[in-house]
């Protein structure tokens, strides 16, 4: 308790509070820019922390991380472009809301949900770190494979009508992910002899191309923006208290999404990218009105935004206890810790307890700081985007996407890949193959491949190496969830038929 109080005391210094607000603002700006990820924000800001004390450095990076994950929702809501991969599903509901003139309400919901998610992640980290860390090391290649397959079952809910077209989109994404050097074998595949293709298709390049370019083509076709004007009634609905009440009115959705976010976060290598999609899918499955998803429902937005911010502190569980980064940005934070002589493990919570707890609590404060920073920043960004004529908005977003894509790997090839994928994405959208399943395939295909091949390698001693995929109890649980998840649409149909049959029976 003493350590905890001392940690709180460290955080009352004005300079630390300033760092938290500054970090959240910087993270929000980076996150809102398509192509600039939380990892990139932390990597860029890393040198600035060298001259800081360990606490100030960690507090700054934690605040930037929190702000960047939340900032991704701005671009997703206002221009249908997930600023970071953690806000892919935010675009599914946020953008339709913005088109209906409910952009401020969507930003408000995203802000409150992100803040709650951020605080929930901190609470998980404070109170459940040791048992969760034990669970995280039980995940081997086979479990990773099944987690990826579980993610791929989301295609059913992202398909918007045709499951077969969704599956085709998913396989296209998976195949795009196999271009380049194989992750385990180390051999080049599908590079057409071009050395530049050995690096493969960066997931964020595909994300920007597939989500942004079709929207820009759409604006060009219509010669207007798709954002709806905010009406007086929607302004009222966007007030802080009404939005907060709306978010809190469905606690089940909020709690479920936070738990999903935490479970995904502790799996090393996963993170907000997967958490937001899984939480969105589960929210849709649990909803009384799943048919409304995709048309601008607050439920989906709450699920995705709360879950992705849980992963910020949640992914620190394996990092602080075992030294395993739960998500790529955590690797940067691990670097800062090691630089200052802090080694993950029990010692971190005892000898360096004040510092560690102060860092953890500072992430909670960063989550709270997101509310004023986000609401003010959100209004400002909305006004700028809404008042900008479409003929300036199209090239300006184009500039942001080109520069963001280039900055990922300093590669013009990536820019061309982004434009080509975007153009193909626009054409595929016309025939009903949506960008979401393609991106999902690209993200999860790589995880599935590594898990599958490593599991097979591990099972070489068996007559049938594939047995390795079904060995562990944790795999069985995951397989069970996969089966239920894949069969859920059919179970729903069956349940509805049974209910309508019962009603008819009752009426007779």
């Amino acid at each position, binding site marked *: 308790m003493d350590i905890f109080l001392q940690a709180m005391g460290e955080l009352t210094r004005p300079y630390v509070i300033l760092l938290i607000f500054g970090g959240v603002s910087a993270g929000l700006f980076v996150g809102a820019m398509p192509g600039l990820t939380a990892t990139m924000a932390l990597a860029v800001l890393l040198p600035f922390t060298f001259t800081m004390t360990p606490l100030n450095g960690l507090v700054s990076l934690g605040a930037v991380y929190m702000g960047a994950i939340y900032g991704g929702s701005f671009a997703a809501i206002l221009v249908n472009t997930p600023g970071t991969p953690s806000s892919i599903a935010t675009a599914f509901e946020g953008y339709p809301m913005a088109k209906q003139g409910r952009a401020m309400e969507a930003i408000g919901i995203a802000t409150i949900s992100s803040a709650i998610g951020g605080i929930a992640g901190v609470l998980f980290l404070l109170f459940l770190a040791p048992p969760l860390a034990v669970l995280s090391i039980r995940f081997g290649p086979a479990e990773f494979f099944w987690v990826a397959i579980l993610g791929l079952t989301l295609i059913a809910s992202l398909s918007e009508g045709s499951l077969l077209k969704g599956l085709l989109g998913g396989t296209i994404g998976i195949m795009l992910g196999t271009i380049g050097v194989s992750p385990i074998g180390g051999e080049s595949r599908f590079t057409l002899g071009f050395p530049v293709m050995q690096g493969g298709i960066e997931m964020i390049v595909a994300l920007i191309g597939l989500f942004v370019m079709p929207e820009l083509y759409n604006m060009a076709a219509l*010669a207007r923006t798709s954002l709806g004007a905010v009406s007086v009634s929607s302004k009222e609905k966007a007030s802080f208290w009404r939005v907060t009440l709306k978010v809190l009115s469905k606690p089940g959705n909020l709690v479920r999404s936070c738990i999903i976010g935490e479970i995904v976060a502790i799996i090393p290598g996963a993170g907000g990218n997967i958490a937001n999609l899984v939480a969105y899918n589960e929210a849709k499955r649990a909803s009384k009105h799943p048919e409304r998803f995709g048309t601008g429902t607050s439920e989906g937005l709450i699920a995705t935004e709360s879950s992705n911010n849980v992963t910020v502190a949640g992914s620190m569980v394996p990092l602080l206890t075992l030294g395993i980064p739960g998500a790529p940005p955590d690797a940067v934070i691990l670097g800062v810790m090691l630089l200052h002589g802090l080694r993950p493990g029990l010692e971190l919570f005892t000898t360096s307890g004040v510092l560690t707890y102060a860092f953890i609590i500072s992430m909670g404060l960063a989550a709270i700081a997101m509310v004023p920073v986000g609401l003010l920043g959100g209004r400002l960004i909305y006004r700028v985007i809404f008042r900008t004529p479409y003929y300036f908005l199209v090239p300006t977003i184009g500039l942001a996407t080109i520069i963001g894509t280039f900055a990922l790997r300093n590669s013009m090839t990536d820019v061309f890949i982004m434009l080509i994928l975007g153009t193909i994405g626009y054409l595929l959208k016309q025939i009903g193959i949506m960008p979401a399943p393609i991106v999902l395939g690209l993200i999860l295909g790589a995880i599935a*491949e590594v898990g599958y091949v490593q599991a097979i390698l591990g099972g070489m001693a068996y007559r049938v190496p594939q047995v390795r995929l079904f060995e562990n109890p944790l795999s069985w649980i995951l397989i069970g969830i996969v089966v239920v998840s894949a069969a859920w649409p059919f179970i729903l149909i069956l349940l509805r038929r049974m209910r309508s049959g019962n009603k008819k029976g009752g009426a007779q």
Partner: protein
Amino acid sequence: MTRNINTDLVAGTFGLLLSFGFWWLLDRELTFLSIGFPRAMIAIMTLVSALLVIKAFSKTVERTDLFTVGSNRRVFVTGLLFFGWAFSISYLGFFVAGVLAISVIALYLALARRRVSVPVFAGWVLIAVLEVSFFYYVFTRLLHIPLPEGWFF
């Protein structure tokens, strides 16, 4: 003009062609570690595409009006301008190419709704200069990311 298309057939055919393309590009000399997963995925893609083609001839076929929203010519020209922008960056450099592309795209798209006088366009060029300068400054000075240089800078 009506563009009512059997999208199941188009998607299925596209999927089959893509599967064939990937299968054809697959280097048979690779080890199982590199070839196993893509081979399985190509098989799944072929199956899904074939099912779509079969569905295209069933009663549940999906037909949609394609390219009926807005001006297709504007989409095509905007696409060309974006590709031209990316292509010119290597020659003109990020800054000059950016200012040129933003000005030209803004002018082209604006002409769909309004008339643009020379002084107004001059003002837009200035806005484009400010916009690109802002991004240039943030990336090169603050984030230390070198941007492509061309004939100018």
